[in-house]
């Protein structure tokens, strides 16, 4: 894992290469992560691959930071197989304008994963070859994994609430 100093080095080089890209770096439990400006995601990932040897993108996943303001987050887990080194690149996007540039053209593995983030959180990925719902049915409204989406499911039928029961147990 890039230790504290290594992380700052990488962040410094990134900031110099792409002005205004790096917002903050956190070093937590021995794992480094860099939060970047959403617009510069392709540039940052490309430079991390070229200059720092992170050649494999392992996982792209979405997070809903509900109470905090820029609500929808997208995380990119990068991996360097030679030095067995992992780095997380995070970006935060507001709910009102959830547009992020898709990295599928240069990282083919992000194809289905970005579709899942769009399906579950509603983050639009521009430039994605075929951005559609992947897990939910095509005509499903709403993005289920947002924290304000109700969990749904049936109310568990006890004697006290069976009057309002769905009726299919009759």
């Amino acid at each position: 894992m890039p230790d504290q100093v290594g992380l700052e080095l990488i962040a410094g080089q990134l900031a110099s290469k792409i002005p205004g890209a790096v917002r903050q770096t956190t070093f937590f439990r021995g794992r480094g992560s860099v939060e970047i400006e959403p617009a510069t995601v392709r540039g940052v990932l490309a430079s991390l691959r070229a200059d720092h040897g992170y050649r494999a993108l392992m996982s792209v996943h979405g997070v809903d930071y509900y109470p905090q303001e820029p609500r929808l987050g997208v995380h990119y887990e990068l991996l360097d197989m030679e030095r067995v080194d992992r780095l997380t690149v995070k970006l935060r996007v507001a709910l009102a304008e959830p547009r992020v540039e898709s990295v599928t053209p240069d990282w083919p593995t992000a194809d289905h994963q970005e579709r899942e983030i769009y399906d579950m959180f509603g983050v639009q990925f521009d430039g994605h070859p075929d951005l559609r719902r992947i897990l939910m049915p095509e005509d499903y409204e709403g993005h289920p994994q947002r924290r304000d989406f109700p969990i749904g499911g049936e109310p568990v039928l006890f004697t006290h609430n069976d009057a309002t029961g769905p009726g299919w147990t009759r």
Partner: protein
Amino acid sequence: MSTRSRYRAQEESITLSPLEEQIAAQRGGETTELLTLNIGPHHPATHGVLRLLVTLEGEIVRELKPIVGYVHTGIEKTAEQKAYWKVIPVIERMDYLSYYFNAMAFCGAVETLLECEVPKRAQYLRVIHLELNRIMSHLVWLGTSALDLGAISMFWYCFRERETILDLFEFSSGQRMHTRYFQVGGVMEDIPAGFEAKLREFIAIMPGRADQYADLLRRNEILLQRLRGVCPLDEETLLGLGVTGPLLRAAGNPWDLRKAAPYTSYEDFEFKIPVGTVGDNYDRFAVRLAEIYESVKIIEQALDGLPEGPHITEDRKIALPPRHELATSMEALIHHFKLVTEGFRVPPGEIYYPIESPRGELGCFIRSDGSSKPARVHMRDPSFVNLQATAPMVRGAYIADLIATLAMLDPILGGIDR
């Protein structure tokens, strides 16, 4: 095809329509009739409810689009509603063939967040159960894939061994599948008295049984014709697609998290990583078959070196106190009450904890907001990412090769759809 459903028309319009001209151009102007067909959710060869929208030119697959989501259970949403130690049964039902690995990834992530030190004996017990589960998962894969390729009797042999392994799981944890044996901080209970003897018995017979499977299949001309040189994919495209696990090792890249970034004391064991050369279906088959032998070796070393000591962390803030202690000490009662009602609180932060599951890198991402419920649990499932590699593998192959490739890919739809 007058009344085409809007959904299907939209499906085909995306990447498929220009195909007919491409092929016509290739073939010198002679346009052929392309048939779009669903190898759909209910199909014996898709190993679960995977739907493949396949464009065929006669018997040759021209374009393949996997459509998933038919067993989407909203596990990650359910996990956000439960306390940390209640999430384990829900997480285990994700990739339902390697349930110990799901529990291990989740417990590893929570233990890293809590900075809780797992005792050595618990780590060894975890390794034993993880490797047993890896053998069981490879056995179910071998049984069903051989079934797809026509070797029906393999199914009964592999499930005979699987029953022995499930007896061991039942012996140690009381349940055959989804055992919830891993607890945050260690394992639920120590292994019972006769477990070691039964496990030694199993270790003694397993390599012999694996030899029998190898003899049955390795020189079986039909299987060799179906697997050798079929649908290869080079290492570069696999890395670009983020594929890990036996598929990547079959293409020659020895990337295995047990060796690269050892967790739960894998560094104490001596084992080799089987690696293929060509990266075709036969290499994927041979790599998984060889991994069974390696797992048996790991179990043997773990069993020999099983240290004494507690089977779960002594930190009462995380692990439930033993029952007899409740009668005597007041603190145990308070800890017990606190854990059972609200569960332990995890310091806020985010962690991504990857481990090596039988299908590839299984990473558990947890974001905790300091309360006793995880704010976000995401499992980076290897089958979900490896599934994207089917399309490049299968273009231009026959349908029969598509079935063989799907069998060698070993997708588990529970993990894909979460």
